[in-house]
């Protein structure tokens, strides 16, 4: 956190000064570790074993916050009798279909429930998770029933002992116990602990389950919905949260509404029914959806035409970034927009990305500087090796200079869901334009052309009927970001800005571009531009910017009070039930129906939030509970389970199943893996662990830092970090050069020999890690090989994020070969890798995406 979010880290330091224990778990000793109380070195890719060990520690030692667990989580809920755990099936859950490498999740459901109608499409899942059919699942509040979640959880993690943690993660058991105890001691009524994570947790073939394990820990300890608690994603880009809320993601519509699948729906209601839950706040999905359709198609979205539901394109599979990149390689994808993204450096397997772009018909790159993704056709390692020849590349490339954030109005959503407005300071120079300008005018020109050429073509109707009339201002005809934000926030029948999503209607009288952002233009005021100084308000800072939903700063904050509505403790007072005024109150906006008393019991006909009890704080969940166990909505299991990474040097110590059985793999010559699927590297071909990361001094793919003098000079060259032991083993010289090799490619980096990258003892042997920052590429002031070029595409099955925090590699002293000799070096390794007997470990599995 000190490395990548230094300013956020000030609050960690504040906490430390007040006595908090700061624990840093990382494969390397970073600037965060330097300031932490406890540094826990961990083998990359083994975090579920570590966190699972904590779960086990909490359960075995009865350290959980019982009242919280019983009341606010699904611990008491009883699961179907035919559910089988990984403990029963040696690493897979019930319902596994080895052929399809997929689960039939029906046995995972709550007892007495059936799978909802329609085919569950994982890629379609919005924020709602999958619905739980209405009705009360059986519970055992004594937590003794053998099929209750609590008992299943206990059983699932029983083998995650301190010894196993040591064997798997390389964390000495004393150190592990110290961490587990510190967490337990600092949780409960009076105290809370928080988890902060970043892509070190998400970029794995089990990334979602990493976070899930932390969620289980936090639920057991009662650390969710309370001040000082939570699981905080430290996101890496100014508005990466915003870009999932208002998603430029294939499977989502704004506000985590799912993108409709190509299955046959009986109109929009059917889509809503199949994709939402009738209980909890997702019970209002129809209001959110119709308001979105009204925002997009205005008068053309009516009850008569099913609110223009037919205008929406349909997805029918995985259309995520790496999948469509494969599509480029295979020729189906012909045109590509890259507004502010640099996959040639920033995506895993850079070579594959660049080779893919070299097959496009056209490419539009919008950025501040000429980035590697715009220059690949004349400057790239493939040009150097001869794999690509400029003359042979058909891609037409448009590079359009972008306006910077100081040259346009707009809002960013930060990592804590806070929308903050930035104002235009100066006008952009030359051809620089905002992306707002680009897309508005692109849309305007396309609409003009389509209107002229084929106004009656049914496929053009959604475009021509789109509301696309934003006011423009100035010489450059810049569209008004303010007007766009008003549309996002939404208006009612009288044209007045909405105050909250609770005002949305399903009758077409309200329009709202993103329901969770509704109210950000409340009272006709741009709430995101509010800047009340922090000294003039409470520490919650509610008058600075605007947080979704409804300006809440802590989600599910009803859980900060006990079931009766009293704060769990005075120290941790946040939101509570005011008996006198009969409403929820506190120092934040209560995340609960304001007037619903703690003793509310839903009636038989109750729907949406009314169908939840007054003691159920997790109002977006169909059962109002936090989920220790996820009955529906995940592709790879209701409980997190330790699996080895796609590329590993160890056998899975827990199960015969080596890796996540439903992870996504890609079979392509450019995407060879270091070991066969579900095998592991024990013959020393790729004997070292490889992990990638960022440095404080640089930003992601480097477009915004390697081109800036003051940053480039601070970390002027790509380096790799190795332990003194590894340096000795491979004769690597501090300050010299090393070549790092995988079956994808080899890169060169300067060598930093440092104790900060510890070698860890796992399964009785010492294993070394090679650490590589991934910021470099061939453009900019400071140039170097790209760390991501080393990595394969192997994805988490739920969110399709690549595994780049844990892979394997070989390392040699000296610079890498140039030109064709580089290809020969890598080919040699690839041949040796392919010649090995397959499937040395466990059973073969994994979904292979071949398009």
């Amino acid at each position: 956190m000190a490395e990548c979010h230094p300013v956020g880290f000030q609050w960690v330091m504040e906490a430390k000064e007040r006595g908090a224990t700061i624990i840093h778990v990382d494969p390397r000793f970073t600037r965060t570790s330097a300031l932490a109380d406890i540094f826990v070195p961990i083998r990359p890719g083994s975090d579920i074993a570590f966190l699972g060990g904590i779960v086990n520690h909490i359960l075995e030692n009865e350290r959980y916050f019982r009242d919280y667990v019983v009341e606010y989580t699904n611990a008491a809920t009883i699961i179907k009798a035919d559910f089988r755990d990984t403990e029963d099936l040696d690493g897979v859950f019930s319902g596994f279909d080895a052929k399809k490498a997929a689960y039939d999740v029906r046995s995972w459901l709550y007892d007495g429930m059936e799978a909802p109608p329609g085919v569950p499409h994982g890629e379609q899942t919005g924020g709602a998770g999958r619905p739980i059919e209405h009705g009360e699942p059986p519970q055992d509040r004594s937590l003794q029933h053998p099929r209750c979640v609590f008992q299943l959880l206990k059983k699932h993690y029983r083998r995650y002992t301190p010894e196993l943690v040591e064997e798997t993660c390389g964390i000495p058991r004393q150190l592990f116990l110290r961490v587990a105890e510190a967490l337990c001691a600092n949780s409960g009524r009076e105290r809370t602990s928080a988890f902060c994570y970043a892509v070190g947790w998400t970029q794995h073939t089990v990334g979602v389950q990493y976070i899930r394990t932390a969620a289980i820990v936090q639920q057991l300890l009662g650390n969710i919905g309370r001040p000082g608690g939570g699981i905080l994603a430290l996101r890496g880009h100014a508005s990466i949260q915003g870009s999932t809320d208002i998603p430029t993601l294939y499977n989502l519509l704004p506000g985590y509404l799912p993108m409709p699948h190509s299955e046959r729906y009986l109109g929009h209601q059917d889509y809503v029914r199949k994709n939402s839950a009738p209980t909890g706040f997702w019970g209002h999905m129809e209001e959110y959806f119709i308001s979105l359709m009204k925002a997009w198609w205005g008068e053309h979205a009516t009850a008569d035409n099913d609110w223009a539901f037919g205008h929406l394109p349909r997805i029918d599979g995985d259309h995520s970034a790496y999948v469509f990149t494969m599509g480029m390689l295979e020729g189906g994808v012909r045109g590509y927009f890259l507004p502010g993204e640099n996959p040639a450096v920033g995506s895993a397997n850079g070579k594959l990305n660049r080779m893919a772009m070299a097959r496009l018909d056209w490419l539009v790159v919008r950025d501040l500087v000429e980035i590697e993704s715009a220059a690949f056709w004349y400057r790239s390692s493939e040009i150097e090796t001869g794999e690509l020849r400029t003359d042979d590349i058909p891609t037409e490339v448009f590079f359009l200079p972008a306006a910077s954030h100081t040259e346009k109005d707009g809002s960013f959503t930060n990592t804590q869901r806070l929308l903050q407005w930035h104002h235009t300071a100066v006008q952009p120079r030359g051809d620089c334009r905002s992306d707002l300008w680009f897309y508005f005018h692109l849309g305007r020109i396309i609409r003009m052309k389509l209107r002229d050429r084929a106004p009656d073509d049914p496929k053009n109707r959604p475009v021509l009927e789109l509301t696309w009339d934003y006011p423009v201002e100035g010489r450059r005809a810049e569209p008004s970001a303010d007007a766009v934000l008003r549309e996002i926030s939404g208006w009612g029948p009288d044209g007045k800005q909405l105050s909250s999503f609770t005002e949305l209607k399903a009758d077409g009288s309200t329009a709202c571009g993103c329901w969770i952002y509704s109210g950000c233009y409340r009272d006709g005021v741009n709430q995101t531009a509010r800047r009340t100084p922090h000294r003039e308000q409470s520490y919650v800072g509610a008058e600075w910017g605007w947080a979704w939903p409804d300006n809440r700063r802590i989600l599910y904050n009803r859980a900060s009070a006990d079931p009766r509505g009293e704060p769990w403790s005075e120290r941790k007072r946040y939101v509570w039930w005011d008996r006198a005024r009969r409403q929820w109150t506190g120092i934040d906006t209560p995340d609960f129906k304001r007037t619903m008393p703690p003793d509310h019991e839903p009636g038989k006909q109750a729907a949406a939030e009314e169908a939840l009890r007054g003691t159920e704080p997790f109002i977006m969940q169909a059962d109002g509970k936090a989920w220790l166990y996820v009955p529906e909505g995940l592709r790879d299991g209701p409980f997190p389970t330790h699996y080895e990474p796609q590329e590993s040097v160890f056998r899975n110590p827990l199960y015969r199943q080596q890796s996540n059985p439903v992870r996504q793999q890609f079979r392509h010559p450019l995407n060879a893996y270091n070991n066969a699927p579900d095998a592991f590297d024990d013959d020393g071909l790729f004997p070292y662990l490889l992990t990638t990361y960022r440095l404080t001094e640089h930003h992601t793919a480097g477009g915004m830092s390697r081109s800036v003098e003051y940053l480039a000079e601070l970390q002027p060259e790509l380096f790799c970090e190795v332990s003194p032991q590894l340096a000795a083993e491979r004769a690597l010289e501090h300050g010299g050069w090393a070549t790092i090799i995988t079956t994808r490619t080899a890169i060169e980096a300067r060598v930093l020999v440092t104790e900060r990258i510890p070698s860890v003892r796992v399964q009785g042997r010492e294993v070394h890690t090679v650490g590589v920052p991934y910021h470099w590429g061939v453009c900019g002031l400071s140039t170097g090989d790209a760390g991501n070029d080393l990595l394969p595409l192997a994805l988490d099955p739920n969110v399709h994020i690549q595994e780049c925090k844990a892979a394997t590699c070989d390392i040699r002293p000296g610079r890498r070969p140039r030109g064709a000799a580089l290809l020969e070096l890598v080919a040699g390794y690839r041949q040796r890798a392919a010649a090995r007997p397959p499937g040395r470990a466990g059973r073969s599995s994994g979904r292979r995406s071949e398009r």
Partner: protein
Amino acid sequence: MGLGGMLARWPLVRQLTRGDLLGRGDSVRSPATERLRPRTATADRVVGSICPYCAVGCGQRVFVKDERIVQIEGDPDSPISRGRLCPKGAATKNLVTAPRREYRVKYRRPFGTEWEELSLDAAMDMIAERVITTRDATWQSTEGDGDEERPRNRTLGIASLGGATLDNEENYLIKKLMTALGVVQVENQARI
């Protein structure tokens, strides 16, 4: 100014007249030093902004003089950052005023070996044409036959991968336009 005046301004003389015999203080100050003020004090306006790097969302103040940015620094009012910035945030002025920034459209024709110049208008028109052509060529209106026929309304011929430093309003227009065009392969950094 007379000779006396000139003499009086001579620091050597001021050393005596001001009692700064060692000549280390007031007497040696130059007129430029006397006039010194922070350049933020003379800015024409101060614009509230947010750091464009990571997702912490630190507040920034942008100082503008003669329509040029003369300074960007942390906003002390922000409850998130309290005026502080990391090295990247602190380099923001350098980022937005960097000489390495591109200010003109660059065009590479198919099989071309060099960048060419292209007007912004022409580029916009060409890109619109490419979108229309590719969309027409790769349009999928339905899948399946007969009773199994289901709508698709889309093209898989176009993809988009956006950065995550775009504004919400920009993402909104991207999603809205692309969805209306039937482009479903719209992704961003959050997937990476």
